[in-house]
């Protein structure tokens, strides 16, 4: 039976961490059983390169050193791989334990538990029973349903340009976008990417659920400067109509349309079972109003009234 990958990786890590002088590929191959069984030089080389990358993903700093004979050797020095001293008390440990549970994405969930295990090995105390009623009863969860998430997270981390097909909200067909990805942000349970759109020559925000197909990496580095502050949320809020610019006057049947009432800046009882409300008018309000059907009548402004009537007519003649 082939030797399990975890065993091979563990052996390579122990060899590299245990040595004081660089070890050549030849020496490593002779010390690790799985490499001896690897067969040809080619398959060993491929396996070795992949394993080194995997250990680096795990945080290991592996140095490549050339000796006087021009032979390449590898080692993971103690001082560059040591976790600096960190002392956490039981409360802090419990708080981190709660935070580590929020990820519903395999890679980040694995990384979060891995981090806790390293801290545990470094002496972090165990959390007390979380059910003793002392801590908040809240269970926060971060959903990640979008397949584009992981490749984009890695591309943001490594600052690698990407290309993907993206279908805008109202577009019939997806379009190929070349993007320098800056940050990912989750708001109201959905993930968004902010970055430099090379084709548009401007900053853009993308909703991950609208990316169709694969996210592919591109060679080369970023061409546009990454801003210090990236404002994803403000952009998305304006899409969602949260940033009101004007005010609208509507008639609303009493007892209905609670969310509009909660947002209203003024309410007047008209006495006939109807109220008159002033509500903030931003992008998307017409869609909200039309949902309420006969429970609402738009008084002003005229363009909002016309939009609502137009939408109603489309449904009335279906």
């Amino acid at each position, binding site marked *: 039976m082939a*030797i*399990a990958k*975890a*065993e091979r*990786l*563990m*052996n390579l*890590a*122990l060899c590299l961490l245990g040595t004081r002088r660089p070890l050549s590929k030849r020496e490593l191959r002779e010390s690790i*059983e799985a490499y001896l069984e690897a067969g040809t030089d080619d398959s060993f080389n491929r396996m070795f390169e992949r394993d080194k990358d*995997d250990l680096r*993903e795990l945080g*290991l700093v592996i140095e490549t050193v050339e000796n006087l004979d021009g032979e390449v050797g590898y080692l993971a020095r103690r001082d560059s*791989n*040591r*976790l*600096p001293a960190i002392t*956490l008390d039981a409360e*802090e*440990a419990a708080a*981190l334990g*709660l935070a*580590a549970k929020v990820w*519903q994405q*395999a*890679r*980040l969930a*694995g*990384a*979060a*538990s*891995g*981090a806790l*295990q390293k801290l*545990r*090995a*470094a002496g972090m105390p165990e959390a007390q029973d979380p059910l003793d009623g002392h801590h*908040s*009863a*809240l*269970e*926060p969860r971060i*959903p990640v349903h979008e397949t584009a998430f992981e490749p984009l997270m890695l591309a943001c*981390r490594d600052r690698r340009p990407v290309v993907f097909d993206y279908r805008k909200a109202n577009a019939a*067909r997806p379009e190929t976008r070349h993007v320098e990805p800056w*940050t990912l942000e*989750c708001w109201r*349970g*959905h993930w968004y990417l902010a970055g430099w759109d090379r084709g548009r020559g401007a900053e853009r925000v993308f909703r991950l659920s*609208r990316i169709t197909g694969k996210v592919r990496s591109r060679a080369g580095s970023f061409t546009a400067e990454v801003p210090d502050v990236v404002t994803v949320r403000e952009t998305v809020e304006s899409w969602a109509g949260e940033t009101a610019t004007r005010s609208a006057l509507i008639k609303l049947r009493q007892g209905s349309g609670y969310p509009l009432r*909660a947002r209203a800046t003024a309410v007047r009882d008209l006495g006939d079972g109807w109220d008159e409300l002033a509500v903030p008018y931003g992008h998307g309000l017409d869609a909200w109003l039309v949902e309420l*059907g*006969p429970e609402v009548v738009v008084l002003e402004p005229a363009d909002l*009234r016309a939009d609502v*009537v*137009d*939408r109603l*007519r489309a*449904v*009335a003649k279906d």
Partner: protein
Amino acid sequence: MATNAIDQTRRMLSLVTYLRERPGAHVSDVARAFGITEDELISDLDVLPMCGTSFRGGDLLDIDTDGDRIWWRNPDASGSSTAEPLRLAADEATALLVAARAVATLPGLREGDRQALLRATAKLEAAAGEAAGASSRLSVIFEAEGGVFADVDRAIAERRRLWLRYYSPARDELTEREVDPIRLFAVGHTYMEAWCRQSEARRTFRLDRVAEIRLLDEPSVPPEIELRDLSEGLVQPSADDPEVVVEVGPGGRWVAEYYPHDSAEELPDGGLRITLRTPEPASLRRLALRLGRDGHIVSPPELVVSAREAAREALAAYESAGQA
């Protein structure tokens, strides 16, 4: 938790550091400290004796277990390099820091917990050093309705019943009910899972739809029920629910993003034919009205009629005013 080779390697490296300090550690204690099952720990302990710095020289970890306690017979001979805990990887620092920052912003979090989290975050940033850098490229904002949240949190801690005035968008009405809170969770929005005393059933309430809330003196006594698995999505229509078919043009594709559905077939014009199930098809009248010319309901026919009637009635109000 599924174990892949990367996660297992990461765990085993920490495990050897941890076990070195604790000769004769109990399997159950170690599994709990590492947040893994005892079976996962045993499978790690099966691999470790094959690991070392030289399999030929016999320089392997002599770690052994009788299923109850764990013994390491040569902690100095081999793997002495693993005496010190390893630095955090970029992904590890990101996973923990992003989560900690997000949780710390929850308005309903108790102050003691928030302070502990902020202290831990600062220590972690310092210990992670460079690896913490990439964590600024990921962020999460939780929406939590502060006042309502605090009342629900208190009701859970004190095991008290709650009275709510709650908005149901499906019916566009506020209803009053008494509920026994079970738990609070945040997935995008913040929700309360509770046992509703009116319907004698489990209900999930979105906190931003709570118009009014009051703690009652009656004790909260929800029946013993299994908690919902949050990873499966919040809306889980049942197979018995009636089917609704909606056809949308390109401008209505968002429906597939917001409504859990059974299928979404591509249409030649760039639109979709979406089949979904809901316990109350009438509640989708709102959707039909909102879609306007971007789509329409195909079935059931009652829903098609009710949307059309609602639109006509609404238009009548404008026409009677002579301004449509």
